[in-house]
């Protein structure tokens, strides 16, 4: 039966070609899961947040397109406007306080660890330890330590005779925000030290020998050589601190609740955002406002990062 023979001869050929083609495309399965998860649960939600901010919302249902309406309300309408600017101010204070603490204290500690001392590994390990705790644990731990009556800090102050310094650290609107900034500094100090240390260790030691021969003092070397050469790590730290300061939420939530008390004295944009998005009882139209606030925060973080990068890049070239 010649016909049958012919088909059996051809069939394997075509099916083989089909199979190799099919197999060739199989290789994209390596990329597919990562791409799928990333697009579905990272990229799309960010886009969606932008889109949502231009619409009116009734509960979880999207209403009409209202352009920049949500933004206008957020910036100009009471009570949102007052809360927004107050929270923004607190974010700025949070950033300045944290970045000063890190640039001064953490940089000094990094210089010390980088100098001729013993036990470098010990100091690195110990300073880094707080970073392993959950931010929420840090917040709760310090709210116990800072408790006005039974807390360890005030007990200690009374013990050494400095009773007049003991105060309700978190209960007083004048001290609450600064106290939280210090706690945040405690949590992130070791990480900053390690980043600076990596920057310092990248500086070749020969240039210091040359400068010493020319009679440069320790202070001159620090200002003219060490700090400019460590600038990339200082830049990285400043940007990370900025992002962290404008995203800060957990610490304040743990220590002061979502109302960011006392009297909103520790309220930041992220706690305001949380109340808008999830805190309201009526659930009314807050999704639109919440999305608008998220977009504002997003733009602030990304543009500030770009500006800082640009600024430091130019500084580097000027050297």
């Amino acid at each position, binding site marked *: 039966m010649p016909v049958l023979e012919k088909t059996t001869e051809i069939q394997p050929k075509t099916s083989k070609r089909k199979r190799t083609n099919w197999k060739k495309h199989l*290789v*994209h399965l*390596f*990329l597919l*899961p*990562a*791409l799928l*998860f*990333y697009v579905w*649960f*990272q*990229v799309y*939600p*960010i886009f*969606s*947040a932008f889109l*949502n901010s231009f619409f009116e919302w009734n509960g*979880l249902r999207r209403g009409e397109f209202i352009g920049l309406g949500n933004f206008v309300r957020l910036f100009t309408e009471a009570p949102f406007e007052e809360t927004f600017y107050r929270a923004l101010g607190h974010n700025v204070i949070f950033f300045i306080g944290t970045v000063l603490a890190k640039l001064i*204290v953490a940089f*000094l*500690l990094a210089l*010390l*660890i980088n100098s001729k*001392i013993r036990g470098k590994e*010990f100091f*690195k*390990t110990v*300073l*880094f*330890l*707080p970073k*392993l*705790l*959950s*931010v*929420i644990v840090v917040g*709760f*731990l310090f709210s*116990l*330590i800072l408790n006005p009556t*039974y*807390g*360890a800090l005030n*007990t200690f102050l009374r013990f050494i005779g400095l009773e007049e310094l003991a105060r309700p650290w978190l209960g007083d609107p004048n001290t609450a925000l600064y106290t939280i900034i210090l706690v945040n500094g*405690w949590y992130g100090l070791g*990480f900053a030290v*390690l980043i600076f240390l*990596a920057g310092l260790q990248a500086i070749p030691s020969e240039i210091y020998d040359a400068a010493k021969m020319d009679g440069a003092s320790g202070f001159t070397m620090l200002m003219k050589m060490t700090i400019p050469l460590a600038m990339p790590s200082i830049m990285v730290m400043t940007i990370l601190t900025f*992002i962290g300061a404008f995203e800060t939420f*957990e610490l304040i939530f*743990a220590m002061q609740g979502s109302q960011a008390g006392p009297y909103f004295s520790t309220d930041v944009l*992220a706690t305001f*955002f949380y109340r808008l998005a*999830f805190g309201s009882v009526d659930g009314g139209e807050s*999704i639109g406002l919440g999305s608008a606030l*998220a977009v504002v*925060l*997003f733009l602030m*973080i990304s543009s500030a*990062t770009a500006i800082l990068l640009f600024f430091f890049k130019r500084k580097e070239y000027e050297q």
Partner: protein
Amino acid sequence: MTARFGQYAKYLILLLFSFLMLYPVFLMISSSFKSNLEILTSPLGLPQSLSFENYVMVWEKVSFGSYVWNSVYVSALSVFFILFISSLAAFYLSRFSFRWNPFVLFFFMIGLMLPMKLAILPLYMIMLQLNLLDTLTSLVILYVAGGIPFAVFVFYGFFRTLPTELDQSARLDGCNSFQVYYKIILPLMKPALATVGIVHLIGVWNDFFYPLIFLKSEELSTIPLGVLTLFGEYDTEWNLLFASLTISSLPMIVAFLFASKQFIEGLTSGAIK
């Protein structure tokens, strides 16, 4: 003489800061062995006896055991899928030369800078549509998605340092792409897996924000969310509070003491590069 004095001052400053870093953690652990009365009357003193009573109480009274189990389950699954999915993608991006690969890599790198907290409302709506609100699965999905950019970034950098001769010779021996990945690449990439795994393990174990938003039932709580519940319900029983904080922190601290080099390297690598 002044040099000597300077040297002492260095140690003094470093020791002072080391003390400031360690003492709150020490206080947390030591207080977890005290009775409530002991904590309130002498907060700074050492515990009079090493009693595990608080831990037993936390375990029985507040079902802390299920929080621990939920945390272990979510962390293990998330880290496993992050490592698996991202290493496959990085293998694809570094070992095949499709013309879109540079763009895909750049696309993933953008993810390193996305502040996902701000996309929480759309994420909430996605989970609502998928009927995944109030499930541990929703957390695993979000951690995996969030972990991919950093993992791909590290793995891609690692693969570029691996010579391609090995996988070429394996191909000549008749291995297909998946076998090359599984038999050649995976065993070689253990250091990179450890780095990425540690970073995400800490992140997932300690995360509070996603559980706060996506979990409603108390029995599904992970440890950080369980701590929140505990602080709401037993706010006067400080012995239980300190014990719960210690349970939450101790696994990571112990792991850190065993492998501090890998921890430090992992957690700072994202920032330096």
